[in-house]
């Protein structure tokens, strides 16, 4: 029964993409858009295939991926740590809450020029921006999950002999795992988006930079390639995270 579930899930996931490709091809074939503005899908995918075997393009991908992972990892470590701390300690909670309320609605991308000034135009500024944007959903999800852990679970663990300081890692962290992983999923999507945008705004390399370069030379095909690449990367990474989530949360009832 599980096997059939996975197969039909994959098919269901592919269907919209198929549909989009059909619409795309249709738009081109029926002349809704000139080829210079909307190249046919076949051409784009051929170009993409050719690019993927070029080392220079692969290096751009690696650059983007590196910043994405670095920023996301920092966001996860900080977000989970602060979220847990705020959930178990009232004093940390009192300090963190107002700061998060102030910083969360700020468009962090507005900080980007400052980051460029302080950290230069290379990896660091982008990693920091990614981390700043991905941090808050992860922090808030962790806090929510950790602060709504069922009291009786904690009591059961204490009666079984768990010392107070062990409760955090033995009970609260595993019990909050579903929430934390949901927050991580949102954080991952945000990381993909932000790294791409940051590279588009200013960069010397990376997929976003590839798009801007192509835009400057009005090469429509070369513009679609990095866009589709980042979307595919996002889908693959999301899929991996979901798989990890399913495995880690195999004991939990479906939430």
């Amino acid at each position, binding site marked *: 029964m599980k096997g059939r579930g996975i197969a039909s899930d994959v098919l269901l996931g592919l269907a919209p993409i198929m549909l989009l490709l059909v619409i795309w091809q249709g738009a081109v074939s029926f002349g809704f858009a000139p080829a210079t503005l909307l190249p046919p899908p076949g051409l784009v995918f051929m170009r993409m295939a050719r690019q993927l075997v070029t080392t220079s393009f692969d290096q751009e991908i690696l650059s983007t991926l590196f910043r994405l992972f670095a920023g996301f990892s920092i966001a996860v470590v900080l977000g989970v740590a602060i979220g847990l701390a705020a959930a178990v300690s009232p004093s940390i909670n009192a300090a963190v809450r107002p700061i998060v309320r102030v910083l969360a609605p700020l468009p962090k991308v507005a900080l980007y020029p400052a980051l460029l000034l302080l950290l230069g135009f290379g990896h660091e500024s982008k990693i920091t921006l990614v981390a700043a944007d991905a941090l808050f959903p992860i922090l808030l999800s962790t806090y929510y999950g950790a602060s709504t852990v069922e009291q009786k*679970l904690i*009591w*059961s663990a204490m*009666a*079984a*002999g768990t010392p107070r300081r062990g409760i955090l890692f033995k009970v609260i962290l*595993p019990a909050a795992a579903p929430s934390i992983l949901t927050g991580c999923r949102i954080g991952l999507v945000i990381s993909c988006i932000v790294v791409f945008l940051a590279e588009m705004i200013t960069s010397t390399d990376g997929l976003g930079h590839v798009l801007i370069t192509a835009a400057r030379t009005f090469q429509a095909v070369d513009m679609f390639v990095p866009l589709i690449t980042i979307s595919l990367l996002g889908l693959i990474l999301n899929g991996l995270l979901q798989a990890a989530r399913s495995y880690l*949360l195999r*004991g939990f009832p479906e939430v």
Partner: protein
Amino acid sequence: MNLMPSRSELKVEAAPVANPAIPMIEIDHVSQVFQTSSHQDHLALSDISLTINDGAFVSILGPSGCGKSTLLYIVGGFVNPTQGVARMKGSPITGPGPDRGPVFQEFALFPWKSVLGNVMYGPRQQGVKAAEAEAQGRALIEMVGLKGFEHFYPKELSGGMKQRVALARTLAYHPEVLLMDEPFGALDAHTRTRLQNDLLNIWERDRKTVLFVTHSVDEAVFLSDRVVMMSRSPGRIKQIIDIDLPRPRRRTELLLDPRYQKYVVDIERMFDDAGDAELQP
């Protein structure tokens, strides 16, 4: 079946007592005040004093809101009493510990652990080696009737099965006192009667001290040596009744036993008279 006046020193003629001089659990003028959401004081328990000897199966019976669960949590060390003190074997209770093992109505199993993982949790916390803890765990799982389900996750189990796991998990760390908070309340009637029987069978083996909270007169009389009747908020002890029925108790025999029936009727009547008509049969 003498109905004794409340709050006098009572001893139970039950299983052999380890050290009759010091009672297992002593509740000494305990009161509990809670703050409601509108910042008012709510008196949940009012001056409760109770002595429970080793090996006794004692039920705390009362309508909802009478504070019986709160009393259990105080003995468990999960809640600190506003006034008074609870003692175990003479020493004041300051926090939870493996000498008093809880079983909750909501099961409270760790969803991220399998059945075996849950049961092994207590022993592992106490430093028992993995192989040994696993062997003990498997034995306990078999004892509660769940052999073959060791690697199932709680979400895959029925309510009755979950409660069996919860019981096994608590027994695994060998508590001297079992604190059971309406453990069968969330189960259907059929499962409830089966588990009542199974609980008594398991209890007969080593006769631990049991504090059993319930709102079912039936259940209290069937299971216990003593029934502590509590009134509605603020919770006070109305009466304590010794249940003088032979053990081992079989449900089919007991239901037809006039002594059992009289206990049930008398207790229900006592609640009715006081206006606490919310009791379930």
